[in-house]
């Protein structure tokens, strides 16, 4: 016999010995009262409010990050445009014409037509 079964048998005997007034246990529905409900609702509302606020703050923080990245993008684009302008200026006909390489060239009149 195990310890638990011996204990169960022991308890059964104890009831049998009394023979009467055995208490029957009924399951009773336990519900929260109106105050508890109100408090819980308030707590829930506060939690939801906090959740909302953290999300809004987080989103706005991302907004600042996005804004900063957009500014960076704009700056890079502006630099790109400047470089494109500089590149176009360096390749312009007038600059090429006045370059040392162009000045060193000699003009040659065509001797004949290639047929």
């Amino acid at each position, binding site marked *: 016999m195990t310890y638990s079964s011996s204990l169960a048998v022991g308890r059964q005997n104890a009831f049998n010995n009394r023979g009467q007034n055995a208490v029957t246990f009924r399951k009773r529905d336990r519900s929260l009262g109106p105050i508890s409900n109100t408090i819980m609702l308030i707590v829930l509302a506060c939690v939801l409010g906090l959740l909302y606020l953290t999300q809004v703050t987080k989103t706005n923080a991302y907004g600042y990050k996005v804004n900063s990245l957009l500014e960076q993008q704009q700056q890079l684009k*502006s630099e790109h445009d*400047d470089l*494109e302008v500089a590149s*176009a200026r360096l390749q312009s006909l007038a600059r090429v014409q006045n370059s040392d390489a162009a000045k060193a060239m000699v003009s040659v009149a065509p001797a004949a037509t290639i047929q």
Partner: protein
Amino acid sequence: MPPYSSGHLAKPIKSVLRARLWYVLIMVIFGVFMVRLFYLQIIRHDYYKRSATLGHLKEYEIPADRGVIRAHNGSTTVPIVLNQTLFTVYADPTLIKDAGKVAETLSSVLKGDSRDYEDKLRTKDTRYVIISRKVGKQQKDDILKKKYPGVGAQEQSYRTYPNGSLAAQLLGFVNDEGKGTYGLEQALNNELAGKPGQLKAVTDINGVPLAANTDNILTEPVKGSEVTLTIDVGMQQQLENLLKAGLDRAKSDSGSAMIMDPNTGAVKAMANWPTYDPASYSKVEDPSVFTNAVVSSPLEIGSTMKPLTVAAALDSGAVNTNFSYFDPSRYVIDDFTVKNIEEDGGPGTKNLADVLNLSLNTGATQMLMRMGGSGDKINKKGRETWHDYMANHYLFGRGTGIEQGYEAEGIIPDPNKGYARDLTYANTSFGQAMTATPLQLGAAFSAMINGGTYYKPHLVDYTINDRGKKIVKQPEAVNKNVVSSQVSRDIIPLLEYVVEQHAFSRKFDQKAYAVGGKTGTAQIAKPEGGYLDNDYNGTYVGFVGGDKPQYVIVVSVHKPKVPGYAGSRAAQPIFGDLAHMLIDSFNVTPKTR
């Protein structure tokens, strides 16, 4: 004693009454609040909403990038108009504490006299003074890092021109309001400008939009289309150089020239002198320099009309290639005498080649007479036939639709209305009493020699829109029956003959290349009527090619001061230089037969 005496009753009644009074009072106060809140929140809702949002709801316009303009450079393309972000440095004089010190800084960074800056900084009764425009980023940063109160900078996008004044009149410029003015910028303003975007958002105190607001509205800007022109920058530069050199030789103050592809209508180069720098358009004193005379300044084209008259006579069946006639050297029409220049040798039998080579006014008049079925007088049928050719075949008197601002239409007279109609029409047969732009002349001449198709002249090769889609502009045939292909083939050797018979500083190898053309010397009409006595416009229209014409060249020289005829002494040498330039540098395919 009854359990409750009247003295005992009075207390609860008073207490109830007091409670009721309090209740009523509270309700009244509550009611007042309710009424007030109703007034504020419902009735004045819009007002307070507007007031509340005014502080933190901001609207920004996001500018659209204006489209870049590119041009061909041989087989590649290069940008000829770009955008550059520069800054306008401004000051609020009421906030400037030490104007002298600020002026010194401005002078050292922006150059210029510090006293001028100080004067601006001390301007009274204003809170906004522009210190300098078009300031570079580095300079702007150097100024702003000093953190002077009242000094700020505002960025602005400007057009920039890597090739300086190259093709200035063709391109036009963008004014301070961001609107394209003159030339291509004006004609394609909507396409180039794009569409600005909009941001409507709740912002923080620094104006940074708060992302969490669901009412934020963001409309992205639509970038302007990138436009690639049919122009070749190398050809354009050489055209400008040769035009300027030719005008200097001819002692002329102004002139125009154009090169186009007669087989597509694509303009390859187009220039005027004098010109200007579009980046500094505000410094130009004479605004007439903005005008692209090739498309906006119609003129009496003179004898360059004669090939078109001969082609019309051939096409209408009035004459054939073997046609010859007795030329009396003068005709009296409407009591006025139409005559030739003295060097033409007087009366005699002449043919079509003579009409063009000797530039016979009477020959052109004879063509007009023949178009009316007569050999010695101008009649209604002749006038109407020639008018039909001018208006409906060569498309004079109407704009070509090229992508240019302020295109002129020119004038052709009505064949049946007005004074001295026969004389007027005789004059039109050799390019007087009517006006056309060099572009209209080039387009009509191209149609005459390319087989008879009038292609709409155009400057745009293709565009790339904001979504990256490439839209190629196909040649647009406006009229496929300008003249018959046979007439087109017949007229080319006549024009080659003219070139062969005229002196050029460097002769053409006409066995290898087809080079033909015609001079024109036209009187200049006075605004009040009549013509100037000693001033003329010299014009030249011709072609260069091999088996078929590859380029058409039009030259116009205004009031040259060299002795001789303006067409042959001023315009013809420029045509010669341009034709050689094309043969030497731009792959003109030699004849194979």
